[in-house]
């Protein structure tokens, strides 16, 4: 078995908001150059988990080790900026800056995270937008774009700084099936060509099985199962089985009220 370096190691991670315990002892290892997909119902804390990894949130307990460095309670802004240099984060709704043009959005991180000269910005914007299948929209405002385009522009913004690790918060939600497929292919491309490590949150099981090296299912603040996709297909774990099948009947009871 080849020795794969673990890029991110999460040990017994805990996070609560008020009296609500969202993460209750999560353990997960994310291997370098692999695609790890986290699945789980809405509101189970998937976004909370990846926000802890990039330290938009501070965990209440446990440990997160990124590339050998313990970042659990890193609070120095300069150290955090160094950490974030290696990361890209694709937000669920894109989170494009309304006040800037598409081109300015794509190149926003270059100013703060890299030493790229300003004269290269236009070229980089064009290149990265082409990667996500967009052309000649640099001067538009985000409000003039469709939901799917916003998401792709946002992905171009993530790619602009050439991150080593990309965290995707539901990259295919709100996209048509063809665009979803293109994004899935892009995630795989980044892995094969550039060796990017990816952590993907998704509900889209088709995409999950297509892109993942490792799948992890989060339920009630803990990982139900962390395994390869073959094992996920074969598993007898009732929670995982119900979720993959998308069945309303099973041990997972969605809270409809509340």
């Amino acid at each position: 078995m080849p020795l794969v370096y673990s890029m991110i190691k999460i040990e017994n991670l805990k996070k609560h908001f008020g009296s609500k315990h969202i993460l209750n002892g999560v353990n997960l290892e994310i291997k370098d150059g692999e695609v790890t997909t986290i699945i789980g119902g809405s509101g189970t804390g998937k976004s909370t988990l990846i926000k802890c990894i990039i330290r938009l949130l501070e965990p209440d307990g446990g440990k997160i080790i990124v590339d050998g460095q313990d970042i659990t309670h890193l609070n120095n802004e300069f150290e955090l900026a160094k950490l974030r240099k290696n990361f890209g984060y694709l937000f669920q709704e894109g989170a494009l800056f309304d006040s800037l043009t598409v081109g300015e959005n794509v190149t926003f991180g270059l100013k703060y995270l890299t030493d790229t000269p300003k004269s290269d910005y236009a070229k980089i914007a064009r290149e990265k937008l082409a990667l996500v299948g967009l052309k000649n929209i640099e001067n538009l405002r985000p409000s003039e774009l469709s939901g799917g385009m916003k998401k792709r522009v946002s992905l171009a913004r993530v790619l602009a700084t050439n991150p080593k690790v990309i965290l995707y918060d539901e990259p295919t939600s709100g996209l048509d099936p063809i665009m979803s497929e293109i994004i899935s292919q892009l995630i795989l491309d980044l892995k094969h060509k550039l060796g990017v490590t990816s952590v993907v949150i998704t509900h889209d099981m088709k995409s999950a099985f297509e892109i993942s090296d490792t799948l992890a299912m989060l339920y009630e603040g803990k990982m139900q199962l962390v395994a390869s996709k073959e094992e996920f297909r074969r598993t007898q774990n009732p929670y995982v089985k119900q979720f993959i099948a998308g069945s309303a009947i099973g041990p997972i009871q969605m809270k409809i009220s509340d």
Partner: protein
Amino acid sequence: MFKKFGKFLIYFFTQFGLATEMIKDSVFWFFKSKLEISQTLQQILKIGVESVPVILMTGLFVGMVLALQAGNTMQNILSEPLYIGLLVGFSLVRELGPVLTAFVIAGRAGAAVTAEIGTMRVTEQIDALSTLGTNPIRYLVIPRLIAFMVSIPILTLFSDIMGIFGGYVVSVEALGVPSHTYISDITTYLGIDDLMHGLIKAISFAFAIGVICCYKGLNTRNGAEGVGKSTTGAVVISMVIILVIDYFLTAILHAFGV
């Protein structure tokens, strides 16, 4: 009853503490990072330059009504419209100029700042700033604080000048005060210390509005409804705080003979 009051006190001091922390961070980043010059200029344009017409109008009419009221009162008591210039000048420069300008800017620009930052918060744009290597204090708060603190004193001066002019028109045209009397009232009695008194107030109000509106925006929760709530809150709190600061500053400045 006591429980409610206690809860309110805890809430109040928590908010006060967090806002103080934001001020501390702003000072830190002001010295530790390069100023976002284009952002700052844009905000001066939005907060200051675009407010000029409304400030000129309010200044003019406040001066006019002051002259009219003072004239009528003096006419009743002393059977002659005496000291109109003195009354208009003093009340405008020391009190009404700064307070009314601050009120108008809180309603016009403060609300816009809270709504914009609040919307950025609920659409994850604030988090996006952090993942792209900068932070909301550096990119949003400092430029706005500076814009408020530059704009409001200058607008106050505009308002003072327009008010004195409005008072002049009413005194001379409607009350029959000789024009040289009005002018000599102002030039004889109104000194540089009165102007300083007004400007110190204007800068203090500007700082308060900036802190309150940015803080309320950054701490917005719960979507569109939350943005509305923060915005209303920011304007109301700004107005109350302006009057509270006004009283204490007047007392302090008076004690120092300004």
